[in-house]
């Protein structure tokens, strides 16, 4: 796959020619007969076979007759085509031409159905069920088992494998797809075959639930209705659903999903099949995290603050546009814009252009997390417009170095690729971090134990990096001065490929569209006069402001100080930036939100904007790959950010020139990327961080922390089953660190940092000395708000 990509043309591998049903076909060596048959349009029925799982040959549904194995001799028995590789000169007769193959398949199908409950009319899978479909195409109409008075095996049903995944053992045909997925793909072998014979079933160990971030995939690949989700079970029939291909809004993976809706309501989401990106897998958050957009606090109409009562009241769209435009005009450019990281590229572009053309400021920053000028420079020099690393590169690399990135939590599809590559080619994964996580162990990775703050040095000290190495840096490195500079320098020096992996789906698109104080759309540096002129010409405006704007911290400080008088904000948790209510009350605030939030209550104008399901758009994933998707639902209550900003801009008399995502995309394409000189990479020296000099003592500990996949995020609201699969919040530290603090595994401990304290259970983990790990955003235990950020000095002690 990579070879063909590099060469730009299909390279003929060793081809093997065989005859299937009398038709000659040439396929690459090692192709399985079942897939070679697909080449000539013959669909051999199958259950256990899955192209992304190792062959197992368990269900025996795909039996074919092989009168010549390629050596002149035939197989005396029918062969499972899912385990049989092709051979030169092989002759295969499938059910289409061989009575033996046909009878074998009919026989196996009959066997499969004897213990199956045949409850298709009440089964979730009915209508999209491989067993049902293939029983029709390759089975007999009447059951001889039932006719002869056969008694089926029964089980109580369903049983919970996890809070989300339910198992109906009667329907199960024990094809082992789910157990193989868990063992091979996800590396979470919490489900396993137990018992034998007809009693064989999928089981879980007592006290060890099927808690995997990827458990939902087993439901999708189940070829019968044995695995169902608590979220979807008995909710809908497949033939009543309308399916729309889409892209996940939960992370920067760009994973293809399919959104199924019925009567204006999303019923479920499935993994899309995109071999270049997520293959056929998505995380459970991608799959089950869709109920957030239909919570009771969803905004359904614009609101403005009434001049007389001081309360928010419903307003028409035109009135809200007018009030917002008037307020922004009054602020005379003393405006900050915080668009957040969840926007589509089109919406981000509208924000970016709105800032420059309508407000005429560069005070725009999509980052609502720890960030730095160094990071902004890194994004402008190394990330924007870059497509250096792809998923395929991860597979073909010899070594992948993770810095400040925990893929299982922060980019599930990257984690799966790393695991796949490690299993297939022995890819070496090295993590520069503080914790040897379960995710790292599952990719057989090596930890370079590093205290938060010391990443730059650890990366610089790595040896044997070359062009076969890929370095993936996480957004957390923004909190480590010198780390991103070091990453850029190391990549430059060694030829290693470098990519930045952010958390949110809109982060990379916001970089590309210039939602940064020193970066304009298409990678144009604000500081570059030629770039500004180029953009001004494309936009047909006199000029683009040449002063570098305030970053998010700067915007917050200026609001507090009264230097900014207005704020346009969307998709941001004010607590993440430490914005105080007082500052929001003082300023003129325009909020663009899907649901009411901490700041919509304080805003002067509130616009309900559309979630990803209610608009078309594009996410740019961490690779820089453009991932466009269509609208799933028509919802008149909200508008895309593009339309809202266009409305305000037009009222203001400084139109942004488009009103729809499609028009925004067309203009983006026309404006195009900057072809001139790029900003130079940051050169911040290492070790300038405050914690860099903190010595590891029992009292001088450093906090390591990141957001786990399932946390307190509002985009997970509304699915209690999904929430129940989150990992419990615990503080992790090495046995020595815990002993130093007088703690033992399982104790409750109080973690104290610059923001305050939190009390959680502690557990012994493989954590670097002098480091304590705690989840940044666990439900009810948001360490980032209650204690501090990664890299902060903390203390730990027994809970009172």
């Amino acid at each position: 796959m990579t070879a063909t990509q590099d060469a730009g043309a299909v390279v003929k591998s060793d081809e093997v020619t065989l005859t299937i049903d009398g038709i000659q076909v040439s396929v690459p060596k090692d192709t399985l007969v079942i897939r070679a048959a697909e080449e000539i349009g013959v669909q051999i029925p199958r259950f256990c076979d899955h192209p992304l799982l190792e062959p197992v040959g368990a269900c025996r549904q795909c039996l074919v007759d092989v009168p010549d194995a390629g050596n002149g001799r035939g197989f005396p028995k029918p062969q499972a085509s899912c385990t049989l590789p092709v051979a030169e000169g092989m002759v295969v007769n499938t059910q289409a031409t061989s009575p033996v193959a046909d009878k074998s398949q009919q026989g196996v199908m009959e066997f499969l159905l004897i213990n199956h409950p045949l409850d298709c009319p009440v089964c979730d899978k009915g209508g999209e069920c491989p067993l049902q479909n293939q029983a029709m195409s390759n089975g007999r109409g009447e059951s001889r088992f039932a006719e002869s008075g056969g008694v089926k095996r029964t089980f109580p049903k369903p049983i919970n494998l996890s809070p989300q995944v339910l198992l109906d053992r009667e329907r199960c045909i024990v094809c082992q797809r789910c157990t193989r997925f868990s063992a091979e793909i996800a590396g979470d072998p919490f489900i396993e075959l137990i018992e034998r014979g007809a009693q064989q079933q999928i089981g879980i160990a007592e006290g060890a639930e099927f808690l995997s971030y990827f458990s939902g995939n087993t439901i999708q690949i189940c070829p019968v209705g044995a695995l169902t989700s608590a979220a979807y079970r008995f909710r809908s029939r497949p033939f009543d659903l309308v399916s729309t291909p889409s892209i996940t809004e939960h992370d920067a993976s760009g994973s293809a999903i399919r959104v199924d809706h019925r009567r204006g309501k999303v019923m479920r989401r499935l993994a899309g099949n995109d071999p270049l990106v997520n293959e056929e897998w998505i995380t459970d958050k991608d799959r089950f995290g869709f109920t957030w957009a239909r919570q009771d606090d969803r905004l359904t109409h614009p609101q403005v603050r009434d001049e007389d009562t001081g309360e928010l009241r419903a307003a028409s769209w035109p009135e809200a546009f007018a009030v917002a435009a008037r307020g922004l005009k009054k602020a005379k450019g003393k405006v900050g814009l915080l668009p957040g990281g969840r926007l589509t590229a089109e919406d981000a572009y509208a924000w970016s252009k709105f800032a420059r053309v309508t407000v005429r400021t560069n005070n725009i920053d999509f980052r609502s997390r720890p960030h730095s000028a160094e990071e902004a420079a890194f994004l402008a020099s190394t990330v924007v417009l870059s497509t250096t690393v792809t998923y395929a590169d991860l597979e073909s690399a010899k070594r992948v170095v993770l810095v400040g990135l925990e893929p299982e939590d922060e980019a599930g599809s990257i984690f799966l690729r790393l695991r796949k590559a490690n299993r297939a080619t022995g890819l070496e994964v090295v993590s520069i971090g503080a914790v040897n996580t379960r995710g790292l162990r599952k990719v057989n990775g090596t930890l370079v134990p590093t205290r938060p703050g010391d990443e730059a040095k650890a990366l610089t000290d790595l040896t044997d990096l070359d062009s076969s190495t890929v370095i993936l840096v996480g957004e957390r490195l923004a909190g480590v001065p010198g780390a991103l500079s070091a990453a850029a320098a190391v990549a430059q020096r060694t030829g290693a490929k470098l990519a930045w992996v952010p958390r949110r789906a809109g982060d990379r698109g916001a970089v590309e569209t210039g939602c940064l104080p020193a970066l304009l759309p298409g990678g144009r540096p604000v500081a570059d006069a030629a770039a500004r002129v180029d953009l001004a010409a494309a936009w047909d405006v006199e000029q683009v402001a040449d002063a570098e704007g305030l970053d998010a911290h700067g915007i917050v400080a200026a609001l507090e100080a009264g230097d900014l008088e207005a704020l346009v904000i969307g998709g941001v948790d004010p607590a993440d930036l430490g914005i105080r209510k007082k500052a929001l009350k003082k300023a003129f605030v325009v909020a663009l939100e899907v649901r009411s939030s901490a700041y919509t209550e304080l805003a002067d104008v509130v616009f309900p904007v559309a979630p990803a399901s209610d608009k078309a758009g594009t996410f740019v994933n961490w690779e820089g790959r453009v991932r466009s998707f269509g609208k799933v639902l028509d919802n008149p209550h909200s508008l895309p950010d593009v339309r809202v900003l266009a409305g305000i801009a037009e009222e203001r008399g400084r139109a942004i020139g488009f009103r729809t995502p499609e028009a925004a995309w067309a203009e983006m394409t026309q404006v195009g990327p900057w072809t001139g000189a790029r900003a130079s990479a940051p050169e911040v020296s290492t070790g300038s961080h405050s914690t860099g000099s903190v010595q590891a003592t029992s009292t001088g500990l450093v906090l390591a922390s990141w957001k786990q996949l399932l946390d307190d995020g509002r985009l997970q609201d509304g699915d209690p089953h999904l929430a129940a699969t989150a990992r419990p919040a615990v503080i992790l530290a090495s046995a020595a660190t815990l002993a130093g603090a007088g703690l033992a595994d399982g104790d409750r401990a109080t973690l104290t940092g610059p923001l305050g304290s939190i009390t959680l259970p502690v557990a012994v983990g493989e954590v670097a000395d002098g480091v304590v790990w705690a989840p940044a955003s666990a439900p009810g235990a948001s360490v980032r708000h209650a204690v501090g950020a990664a890299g902060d000095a903390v203390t730990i002690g027994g809970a009172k």
Partner: protein
Amino acid sequence: MTTAPNQSVLTPVLTKNWGDEQSWKLSAYGDYAAAKKAFGMQPDDVITAVKDSGLRGRGGAGFPTGMKWSFIPQDNPKPKYLVVNADESEPGTCKDIPLMMANPHVLVEGVIISSYAIRANKAFIYIRGEVLHVIRRVQAAVAEAHAAGHLGKDIHGSGYDLDIVVHAGAGAYICGEETALLEGLEGRRGQPRLRPPFPAVAGLYASPTVINNVESIASVPSIIANGADWFSSMGTEKSKGFGIFSLSGHVAKPGQYEAPLGITLRKLIELAGGMRAGHELKFWTPGGSSTPLLTAEHLDVPLDFEGVGEAGSMLGTRALQLFDETTCVVRAVLRWTEFYKHESCGKCTPCREGTWWLTQTLSRLEQGQGSAEDLDLLVDQCDNILGRSFCALGDGATSPITSSIQYFREEYLAHLEQGGCPFDPEASTVFATAGAKA
């Protein structure tokens, strides 16, 4: 010639010392002379000797043992392993367990010579878990051999190291299937593996592995001690040597009879004192329940791989279960089928679901319910299992059914006509009273 078949056609080699006082002790067995002789040979010469002897696998399939050994890729840098399949579970088969009980040292010595030949430094004996006494006896024999210097480092100054692990199974018939056995040995669920790769290339712990039956390995010392020619002088053209024939059922003196391959059942019954007094042979299995039944008309079939094959069955493990005319074949077949249903590992559909259905159809027939068409249904079910299942367990499950319908269709129909079994089950028991109707 160590045996003198002057008065008998029997050739006791493995069974020769079974009657000796404490035959299982090293002191009674000897000093491992064959192993010492083997250490004086090149490993490849040992393989050649076993090849030349014509020894074929005694576990049922009859694959030439020496050839199997020669498949081990000696240029593979991974360790080589010898695994002895002592998971004797086939209904009717009872040769390995008494052999290990009475003469465990011949097995240990065989393991030493065989491991030396394939250059394995670790060997495993996988013994059926239910036979705890046998496991203990083999463990004791291994310990004795170790203490006597027959095992361990630099055995008898040969520079060759070997350790034997005695492993207890966990009660699954399927683990007698060699790849399922390997799975079990590795600590996993006992289900057969996909082949290729074959165990000779990637077996135990993905390393080259030879898996042999107890009797095959136990035959090796005598071949080394007495020469390939001695061994191949016994038996028939393509089935050389001797084997243990286990007679059970309605015979006067059931037991293990060690004789050259090619002996007939007529001769064996004669040696065993004839059938149960006053009764005559009705049907029999040549090699356990997984081999198709034969009848009295097959009494003169030479019991070697070819002869039994020509008669439409398989030599298998030479587990000769003899049934006289008091036995209801339908009942016997149902019992066997229930066994296969109980022991099906569940991996593949035809065996898992097929045995579930077969027992239901058969038990209805046994109770005289159903119709003559159900016999065709049974045969068709068997046709859909035979050759369609993942391993040979499914195939074996069909053998008693198809062969019994072939020879005793009328008896099945009699069940339907009489609305139940025409036999008195008590008449076939050892406690049958004289009055029980035949």
